[in-house]
């Protein structure tokens, strides 16, 4: 298309929108390694804020990774078979269950976490352990895992492959592990990345479910925004960005590959 004045007007507008999204990210990354943000970058760069964050909050980072990995593992073990059944079954209960399973996406974390507290809050050992946060994360991310695998299963006729394997004498489990799983690998990996990203950044549920001893990274972030100096909050945010950016880039790369293959 011809690049007339409308092109440049829209380009300018788009650049403005992009900078609205990116400028604060860059600003907070810079502030996190600046000696004194109130003075500006001329005060020099330092890693001491990052070190301070590490000293104060490293346990939140480990806990976040632990919960994210556990959530991903549960999602794979529970979600993949579930997606397979939903793709192959013709029962009318499947669509009912589908609705129930995806409902946690539609309902704010606030409501889900209050519900979980009202049922299980009384079990104090459970309430104060990290499993309490884990169940919230699983409920919230499982639909994404199932949908991701389901999308792959619905894109090709896996029944034919299964029947082929069955006619060669493969048992159900053999077919499941050697035919179905390898063929949905793309969906499983995409679902895992999604789960990791969502779990690492989850705040709405986690804030209600956490206890002073089970703080995750986003909970710690909220804490530092309220009480720490600007540079520390920024350094903490920087660490968070370093954790999720590789996951985002990876997801984008997988997505591009998929588009190319099609």
């Amino acid at each position, binding site marked *: 298309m011809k690049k007339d004045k409308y092109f440049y007007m829209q380009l300018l*507008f788009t650049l403005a929108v992009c900078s609205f*999204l990116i400028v604060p990210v860059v600003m907070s990354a810079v502030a996190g390694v600046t000696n004194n943000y109130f003075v500006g970058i001329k005060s020099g760069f330092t890693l001491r804020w990052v070190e301070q964050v590490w000293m104060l909050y490293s346990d939140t980072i480990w806990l976040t990774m632990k919960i994210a990995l556990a959530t991903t593992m549960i999602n794979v073990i529970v979600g993949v078979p579930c997606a397979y*059944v939903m793709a192959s079954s013709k029962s009318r209960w499947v669509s009912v269950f589908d609705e129930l399973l995806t409902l946690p996406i539609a309902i704010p974390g606030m409501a889900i976490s209050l519900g979980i507290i009202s049922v299980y809050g009384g079990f104090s050992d459970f309430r104060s352990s990290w499993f309490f946060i884990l169940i919230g994360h699983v409920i919230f991310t499982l639909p994404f895992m199932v949908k991701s695998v389901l999308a792959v299963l619905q894109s090709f006729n896996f029944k034919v492959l299964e029947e082929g394997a069955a006619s060669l004498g493969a048992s159900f489990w053999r077919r499941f592990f050697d035919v179905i799983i390898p063929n949905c690998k793309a969906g499983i990996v995409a679902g895992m990345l999604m789960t990791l990203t969502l779990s690492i*950044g989850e705040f709405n549920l986690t804030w209600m479910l956490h206890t002073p001893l089970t703080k995750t990274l986003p909970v710690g972030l909220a804490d530092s*925004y309220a009480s720490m100096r600007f540079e520390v909050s920024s350094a903490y945010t920087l660490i968070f960005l370093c954790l999720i950016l590789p996951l985002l880039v990876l997801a984008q790369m997988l997505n591009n590959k998929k588009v190319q293959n099609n």
Partner: protein
Amino acid sequence: MKNTRISLFLVLPAIIISFAFFLLPIVQLFKVSVVEGNGISYWNILTQPMYLKSLLSTVGLSTFVTFVSLVIATITGLFLTRYEFWGKQVLIAMLSFPLAFPGVVIGFFVIMLAGRQGLFAQIGLALVGERWMFAYSMAGLFLGYLYFSIPRVVLTVMGAAEKLDQNLIEAGRSLGASRWQIFCDVTVPTLRPGLISSGSICFATSMGAFGTAFTLATNINVLPMTIYTEFTLNANFAMAAALSLILGLVTWVCLGIAKRQGAASVGMGG
């Protein structure tokens, strides 16, 4: 039949998790909201100005954010699908990365822009000698909500814009239609499903955005903050339950609309 038994076995863990940790809690929440407050909570929401105001201001803010996001996303999305130019992929990546940022972090970004030491404060200081600060006001909240809404809407609009029939546009032009007429009669009808679905997702997300509000809305009563205050400070569990169920109902209906327009499942962030 053996197959049904294996199917049941495979899907059972998911069923147990869904029932025990989602369905049961929501049912319990409903019970609490009705039984503990003798059902008076729902009545109070409608009659006590504090709750009604919180509900209305949240709806107002979300509607406004949705509208502005749709306008911005239509301009940007159409631009990015219509033209090919150097660096386009970078812009698209910039527009999609913020999808994964949690609400608290977005709140902090707003402080970065409009807080005491923020960008606007510096600009204001340089231009007119006073700091422009609005991070902790409705305007700051608006900026934060806009931040997480734009990526969601832009990506959907881009998907919808790819279906635009260039022949129709050319035909319109050769018949003497102005840019504006082509936009209203060709572009908008094509984009409509995408706009409706991403608009309702955006509205639902804004209604339920707790993280951004938690960082910024120390003095503003938006619904998620009201629920939080009822629960923690006032220990009014019945009211918190009733409000969060109403909020859930609203967002559920919105996402139902989005799904009917063929939206892929998009997570609730904010």
